[in-house]
């Protein structure tokens, strides 16, 4: 059965304190992996797509990486506006397998 586990469930950082979020997956036939950001009461906002192991994508303070079994979202020098829930979703057979997310809080 396809499974996705995100850790930690919640993370609290001080502004400027870098960290990483983990997305571990066990799926058959990975076609890509997507990262999203979700603010309370809003729909997920697309951040990155990674298609193959070793691939990296960057956007402002965020960098996503992919291996054959997991993906990391690295947050460098976060700001309070980076507070959100971050979701990862491997793409298998045209369908996304969603993790439960990591709730990130960045304190000023």
């Amino acid at each position, binding site marked *: 059965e396809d499974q996705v586990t995100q850790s930690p469930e919640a993370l609290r950082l001080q502004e400027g304190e870098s960290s990483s979020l983990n997305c571990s997956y066990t799926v058959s036939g990975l076609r890509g992996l997507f990262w999203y950001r979700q603010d309370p009461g809003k729909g997920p*906002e697309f951040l990155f797509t990674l298609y193959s192991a070793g691939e990296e994508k960057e956007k402002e303070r965020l960098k996503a990486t992919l291996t054959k079994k997991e993906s990391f979202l690295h947050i460098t020098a976060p700001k309070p506006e980076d507070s959100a829930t971050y979701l990862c979703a491997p793409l298998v057979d045209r369908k*996304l397998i*969603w993790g439960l997310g990591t709730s990130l809080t960045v304190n000023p």
Partner: protein
Amino acid sequence: SQTIHQWPATLVQPVGSPLSLECTVEGTSNPNLYWYRQAAGRGLQLLFYSVGIGQISSEVPQNLSASRPQDRQFILSSKKLLLSDSGFYLCAWSALDDNQPQHFGDGTRLSIL
């Protein structure tokens, strides 16, 4: 640029009443369309997806149905709502090509009383 509209943002309905949620996409043609439900503490659950007008695939057996009367319009319906239908409903679109990201609307918060 492409935009997706979903309404209403919030809805309170009595048990047994009908439901109609609408989603429209602008700025693209022939999109794949999706309906999800997100319950508190749970991941996004895919309810329906559509690759074209009149083509609907159901992922979860339930008392909900979906229709796609136009290329960029997707409707989620129910004849009689249950308490368990409460949740956050999200519509999304993706380009027709495989492996493209899905883009979401702002959702409808549905409360059943």
